[in-house]
């Protein structure tokens, strides 16, 4: 028994943290927003990407961390990637790191034995040439709200949204019992306004012309791959939420030791202390759930989905709590887009509901526990 990251994992994580601190600060995040005004600054015209951070990650081999050796990857596991997503969250990295290095790789590995296209894509991920989006969509092709759920919603939460869509090379589209590879240019994409501009979010309608030519997986194989990919997506978001929470709390603790009112640091007030302790308590007890789920995915533990849901439910709640406490302790300065807090807070709100919100994942747990 040893419930901690290995020395190598700790080291890798620290390197990625440093890399992201250098390449993905608040200025770079603002530049990823399409609209400078809502971002609170920056050049405007962003597409949901931080190119400097992405190329540095690609160069380091982070994208190919879970790609098999045969395709030039590092052949490592979820247990190695999830800690890096904690760091991506901490930095607020908007790029599709979880989607490309985790979700897509999971899907493509399921398809690679039979599909040369999958092998090729894995190799391209490993070299860092491409970025991919992954969507768990509603198969009812006329769905226009993107929110409607289907029978399979108890297993996979669906949505017809995809972030940074115009920057992606390909999109992997998971439907009920098929997984398709589609070119974003062939999709009817409609930009929608996410609360977090750095996600540069698009809505799409599942195209009618999907078929054998687009399908990578079908039937039971597609279902198994989709479930595994969804689990990774949910856990990746959970890891990012923990990182985001830590970032917000760090900022807030710093602020509370600098800001003075009534002649003293506001962090000396007990109400402020207790807000921050409560928020940090939730984070401290959610993170072990995230790390355990990463281990379960890596080992193919039959309870992995359950473990993922426990982690995502608690990480979503923890991040919302951290955001609320951080805003309250900042007072009005936290309420302006010119201050950095909103960049991380808005990402937390977005990710808290992505790939299943608290309710959804709690239900996956209660269904398992109570057999309902």
């Amino acid at each position, binding site marked *: *028994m040893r*419930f901690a990251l290995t020395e190598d994992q700790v080291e890798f994580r620290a390197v990625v943290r440093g890399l992201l601190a250098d390449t993905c600060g608040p200025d770079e995040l603002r530049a990823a927003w399409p609209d400078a005004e809502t971002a609170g600054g920056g050049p405007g015209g962003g597409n949901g990407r931080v190119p400097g951070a992405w190329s540095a990650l690609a160069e380091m081999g982070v994208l190919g961390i879970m790609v098999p050796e045969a395709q030039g990857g590092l052949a490592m596991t979820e247990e190695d990637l999830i800690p890096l997503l904690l760091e991506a969250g901490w930095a607020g990295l908007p790029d599709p790191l979880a989607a490309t290095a985790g979700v897509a790789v999971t899907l493509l590995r399921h398809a690679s034995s039979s599909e040369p296209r999958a092998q090729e894509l894995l190799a391209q991920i490993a070299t860092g040439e491409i970025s991919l989006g992954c969507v768990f969509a509603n198969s009812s092709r006329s769905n226009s709200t993107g929110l409607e759920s289907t029978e399979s919603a108890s297993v996979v939460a669906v949505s017809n949204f995809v972030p940074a869509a115009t920057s992606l090379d390909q999109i992997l589209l998971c439907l009920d019992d098929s997984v398709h590879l589609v070119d974003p240019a062939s999709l009817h994409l409609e930009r929608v306004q996410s609360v977090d501009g750095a996600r540069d979010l698009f809505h799409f309608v599942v195209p009618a012309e999907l078929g054998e030519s687009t399908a990578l997986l079908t039937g039971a194989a597609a279902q198994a791959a989709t479930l595994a990919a969804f689990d990774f997506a949910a856990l990746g978001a959970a890891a990012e939420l923990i990182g985001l929470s830590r970032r917000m709390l760090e900022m807030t603790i710093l602020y509370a030791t600098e800001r003075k009112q009534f002649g003293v640091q506001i962090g000396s007030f007990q109400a402020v202390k207790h807000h921050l302790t*409560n928020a940090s308590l939730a984070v401290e007890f959610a993170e072990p759930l995230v790390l355990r789920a990463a281990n379960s995915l890596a080992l193919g533990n039959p309870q992995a989905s359950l473990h993922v849901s426990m982690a995502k439910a608690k990480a979503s709640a923890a991040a919302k709590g951290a955001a609320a406490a951080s805003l309250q302790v900042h007072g009005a300065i936290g309420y302006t887009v010119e201050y950095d807090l909103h960049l991380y807070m808005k990402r937390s709100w977005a990710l808290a509901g992505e790939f299943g919100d608290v309710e959804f994942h709690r239900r996956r747990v209660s269904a398992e526990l109570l057999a309902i």
Partner: protein
Amino acid sequence: MDLTWSESEEAFRTEARSWLESNVPTPSLPSGDTKEGFALHLEWEHRLAADQWAVVSWPKAFGGRDASLWEWLIFEEEYYRVGGPQRVTQNGIFLLAPTIFEFGTAAQQDYYLPRMSSAVDLWCQGWSEPNAGSDLAAVRSKATRDEAAGGWRLSGQKTWTTRGAFCNYLFGLFRTDPESERHKGMTYFMVPLEGDGVTVRGFGRLDGDEGFAEVFFDDLFIPDDDGTPDTMVRGGILGEVNQGWGVAMATTSSERGLTLRSPGRFQATATRLVDLARERMGDGLSQQMADAVADAWIDAEAYSLFTLSDVTGVVEGVSMGARSSYNKIFWSELDVRLHEVALDLLGAEAELDGPWMKGYQFALSGPIYAGTNEIQRNIVAERVLGLPRK
């Protein structure tokens, strides 16, 4: 990460499980916080001790099995899984013993520890006084030096002493430097509760059991410990005179940290909660209730995992320090939530004096004892998060 148990740990689990399954009394014992119940619990403690299950993590010489911290966790898991009785020895074995291991002389260890593990001596904790609760440094009970007689004379009052009326020893802080204030000038005493100069009055807790006591000291004489059983039986000092605060803090961190409330206890409660919810499903279980059950159960798992990471740290030499306050807040509030959800499931039956209502009342004391959760939140904020004290 390796979340599996080794072969020898699995073997330990099997051995513990089979012993517990054939020895844990059924039906379960009446509360150990009543006179009759306490006597039955004492018998149980003697049975545990006879087969070396009382204090698995202690050295064999003192009645243990030299078990690792991991094995201790496994034992606790199995203990609560089969519904083992509450440990009326807990204040000694979990709170005083770690302090004796750290600060006691070899003679004190040899004398007190085996008597504690075999439940010959029963220890209660004497921190609180009428005017020293959260503010423990306000202790006023004092010990006066009697040079002529070669010892100390204790006077003052302790209160909220759990099972004080059933124990024969108390450990606690007494002011030994009359000029001193606050944290200075106190000494950690081990005190017999029998004989001239000590009066114990038991009284009822919220749940109706006589689990509390107040203890009055009126010139109780404690001879200097010369390293012989003759003097040690009459009590003594742990650590240095006037250094009691530091010694006591070692005990409180055991109380908040790992040893007092192992995850197995709450996982067992969470499992019972899930069983209750399944039983009630026939009556139609609302999604809201199912969600509440799931949420509380997840928290019990989270506590277990948090503990595994703490134990990994401890095994690798990283001290928990003030992080132990996270534990205390979490387990105590988790225990309340588990019981609240159960009572909600019971509906109108909740008011009946059954195990869940009884458990609920006890759970409600968790955020108060072992340092209130308000105080723990201050500790986390100041010593873990680094917020300013003043």
